[in-house]
C-alpha cells in the first residue's frame, strides 16, 4: 500500500525542479475559442466575406443602417463579442505554440507578439462594440 523507500526516493527526486503552470487560464480561452470557431467560423466567412461578392446575397443586407441596428441589441453585442474575443485568443495561443513547433526558441517574444496583438484587438473590439 505505502510506496517502499526506493520508489519514494525516485518519485521525489526531481521534486524541487517542477514549476506550477498557469496554462489553464489561457488553455480555457483556447479550448472555448476553438470550439466556437469550429462551429461558427465557416458560416461567418461565407456570410460576411463571400456571399455578396458571389452574388448570393444582396448587398443591402449589409448596409450600414441595418448592421448598426442589428448590433444595437445587447444580446447580439454580447454574442459577437464572445465569439470574436475567444477566436482572437484561441488563434493567439495556437500561433504561439506553432512558432515553437517550427523550432524557434523565443517563447517570451511569441507571448509578447501574439498575446499582445490579441490584447490590442480585444481593446478595439470593446471600443467598437460599446
Amino acid at each position, binding site marked *: 500500500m505505502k510506496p517502499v523507500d526506493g520508489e519514494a526516493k525516485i518519485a521525489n527526486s526531481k521534486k524541487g525542479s517542477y514549476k506550477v503552470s498557469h496554462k489553464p487560464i489561457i488553455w480555457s480561452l483556447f479550448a472555448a475559442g476553438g470550439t466556437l470557431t469550429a462551429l461558427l467560423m465557416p458560416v461567418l466567412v461565407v456570410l460576411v466575406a463571400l456571399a455578396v461578392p458571389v452574388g448570393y446575397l444582396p448587398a443591402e443586407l449589409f448596409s450600414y443602417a441595418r448592421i448598426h441596428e442589428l448590433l444595437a441589441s445587447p444580446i447580439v453585442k454580447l454574442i459577437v463579442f464572445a465569439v470574436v474575443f475567444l477566436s*482572437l485568443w484561441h488563434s493567439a495561443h495556437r500561433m504561439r505554440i506553432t512558432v515553437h513547433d517550427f523550432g524557434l526558441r523565443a517563447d517570451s517574444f511569441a507571448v509578447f507578439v501574439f498575446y499582445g496583438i490579441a490584447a490590442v484587438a480585444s481593446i478595439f473590439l470593446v471600443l*467598437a462594440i460599446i
Partner: protein
Amino acid sequence: MKLDNGHYIRPLARYTWWTQQSSYIRYILREVSSLFIGFFSIVLVCGLYRLSQGEAEFNSWREALWSNGFALSIIVLFFAGYHSVSWFSVTPKAMPLTFSGKRVAPEIIIGAHWLLWLLSSAFVWLLFIYGGDL
C-alpha cells in the same frame, strides 16, 4: 554529440521534423489554420470598429473586403473548414462518453458535433437574414 558516458545524442531536425511524415504535415496545417482564423477575426474587429466610426468608414471596409479581400477569404474559408474537421475529429478523445455501460462510438460523438455545426450555422445565417424583421 557524444556524452561523457559514451552515449550519443543525435541532432534534432528542429526546423524540418514536420516534413518527415504526412501525419506531421497535417498537424502543422491544423496549427497554421489559426493564423488565418486569427487574421479573419482581426478583419472582423476592424469592421466593427469602422462601423462605430460611421457610414463612410464602414462602407469602405466592406468594399475592400468584398473586392481585394475575396481571394484571401477563400483561403480563410479553407482553413476554417480544416479547423472544424480536425477539431471535431478529436473530441471523442477529450470527452469519452458511456451510455448504459458501453462506450459511445467516436463516430457518434463526431457526428453529433457536425449536427451542432449545421444547426448553429443555419441559426446564424437565418438570424442574420431575417433578424431585422424580428
